[in-house]
């Protein structure tokens, strides 16, 4: 690691109080960032500040606190919109997270846009959250799911995509980055195909938004979703981006307080823009802190985060390749900070259990991508996933302890 870079990481690490704690008498090494990231002081203080100084409901009070809270809430929308290169802030709808965003889209499309027998295209490495809502719709409406297969290097076989499209195909919904393999989907190419056949494109950005610069104005999908908690923000918050077209046309499927202009028992007029989809009292502190989280990412530099995580990935992949017993999945030079592997003839649960004793947090299991595991013919993997605060010496310690685990577990 370069001198400058080590200082860069050190400075970031100081922002994360949890990195000072010990786990099983060892310093915490947190490699489960794909599941959720740790939070910097800036975000933690933002939440405390809200509850300490201006806790109030938004968009309905005439009093000062409510105005302050509403302003902070809408400011967060500006920050998030800017972060994703979106000019019209109304295109950012706050939800409780990626899963809620997907459900919102599927439920809203279900009544008026999707028709009996329609087909939805997903990919083999979809996370369950981007399978189940579509599957439920398909089961109720005689629809079907088609799945983009993987190539031998575990990237998506997009050559097959066009052949899968029929007159009944309505939607392509794909992960921008595979949460299990870290492979980055070729979104541009998928977008071109979606445009050519006039299909709705939904991008599940849960695993890409934390790791790379994303310009939604440029990609211009119909929908894009992500979760704050994987981006150094709080849990229970996320967003749904929708194109101008859908902002006007998407039917409301979850009406409630806050989504309206006027209500009578005979007729209701719904609000315009994002508020139309934000029923009920939202996770106010969470949304405000989401804005703070993207500001934090900007302050350290998204391009630098990307570069740093990519270097960690290559460093760790190379170290893992040197271990004979290790089998890697989805190796690519450019990935989004995620590595999945197994130790031959050893169950991932056992590897994770031993690593935990050394204070190393990894994810084991199917990572909520059971169809992918079935495709690879394995019960699960050990997954390490990086964030800005991870560093090479943590990987060195991990490799040393992984070897120890192998010596204890290998048959």
């Amino acid at each position, binding site marked *: 690691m370069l001198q400058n870079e080590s200082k860069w990481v050190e400075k970031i690490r100081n922002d994360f109080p949890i990195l000072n704690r010990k786990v*099983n008498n060892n310093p915490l090494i947190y490699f489960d960032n794909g599941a959720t990231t740790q939070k910097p002081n800036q975000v933690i203080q933002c939440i405390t500040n809200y509850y300490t100084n201006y806790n109030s409901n938004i968009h309905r009070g005439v009093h000062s606190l409510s105005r302050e809270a509403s302003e902070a809430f809408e400011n967060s929308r500006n920050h998030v919109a800017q972060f994703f290169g979106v000019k019209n802030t109304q295109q950012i709808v706050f939800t409780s997270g990626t899963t809620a965003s997907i459900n919102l889209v599927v439920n809203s499309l279900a009544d008026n846009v999707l028709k009996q027998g329609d087909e939805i295209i997903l990919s083999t490495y979809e996370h369950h959250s981007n399978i189940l809502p579509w599957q439920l719709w398909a089961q109720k409406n005689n629809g079907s799911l088609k799945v983009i297969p993987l190539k031998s290097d575990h990237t998506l076989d997009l050559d097959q995509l066009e052949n899968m499209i029929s007159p009944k195909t309505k939607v392509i919904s794909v992960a921008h980055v595979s949460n299990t393999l870290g492979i980055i989907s070729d979104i541009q190419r998928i977008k071109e195909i979606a445009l050519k056949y006039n299909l709705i494109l939904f991008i599940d950005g849960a695993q890409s938004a934390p790791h790379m610069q994303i310009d939604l104005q440029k990609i211009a999908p119909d929908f894009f979703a992500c979760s704050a908690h994987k981006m150094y923000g709080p849990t229970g918050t996320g967003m749904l981006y929708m194109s101008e077209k859908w902002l006007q046309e998407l039917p409301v499927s979850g009406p409630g307080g806050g989504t309206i202009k006027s209500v009578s028992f005979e007729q209701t007029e719904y609000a315009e823009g994002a508020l139309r989809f934000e029923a009920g009292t939202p996770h106010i502190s969470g949304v405000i802190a989401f804005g703070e989280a993207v500001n934090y990412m900007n302050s350290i530099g998204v391009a630098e985060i990307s570069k740093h995580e990519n270097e960690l990935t290559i460093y760790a992949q190379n170290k893992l390749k040197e271990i004979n017993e290790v089998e890697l999945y989805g190796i690519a030079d450019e990935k989004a900070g995620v590595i999945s592997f197994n130790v031959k003839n*050893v*169950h991932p*649960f*056992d590897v994770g*259990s*031993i690593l*935990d*004793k050394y204070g190393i947090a990894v994810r*084991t*299991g199917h990572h909520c991508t059971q169809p992918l595991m079935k495709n690879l013919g394995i*019960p*699960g993997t050990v997954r390490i996933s990086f964030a800005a605060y991870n560093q090479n010496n943590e990987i060195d310690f991990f490799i040393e302890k992984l070897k120890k685990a192998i010596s*204890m*577990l290998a*048959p």
Partner: protein
Amino acid sequence: MSIQEKENEIIEEFQLFGDNWESKYEHIIDLGRTMPLINPEDKTDDRLIKGCQSRVWLKTEQEGDKLFFKADSEAIITKGLIALIIRVFNGEKMKDIINAKADFIGKIGLQEHLSPTRANGLISMINRMKSEALQRSK
């Protein structure tokens, strides 16, 4: 030997390792390797225990008012822990299994395997053995 006595015996055995978790785990891994296995054809879905991150199968056989168990798991640490539970419950009367506290896993310093998470199968395993005893004794 009663269930409680067997539990105490295991607790004493593990006290020899002191705070050295590595030796404890090595011992558990060894136990996992030597546990009598279920025949592959007996690994049916109805013997599969839900709630495990690794899959676990349990085969129960009854002789009079006593139960005998065989199990298998994909994960060797889980298997070792199950071997301990089987050692405690095997050949015991159903009413004693139903009433057993079976909290020795915590007492031998392996609390992390008892945490109430989706990842954990050990509690499901103990509950399954108890419910088998309960159903059969009705």
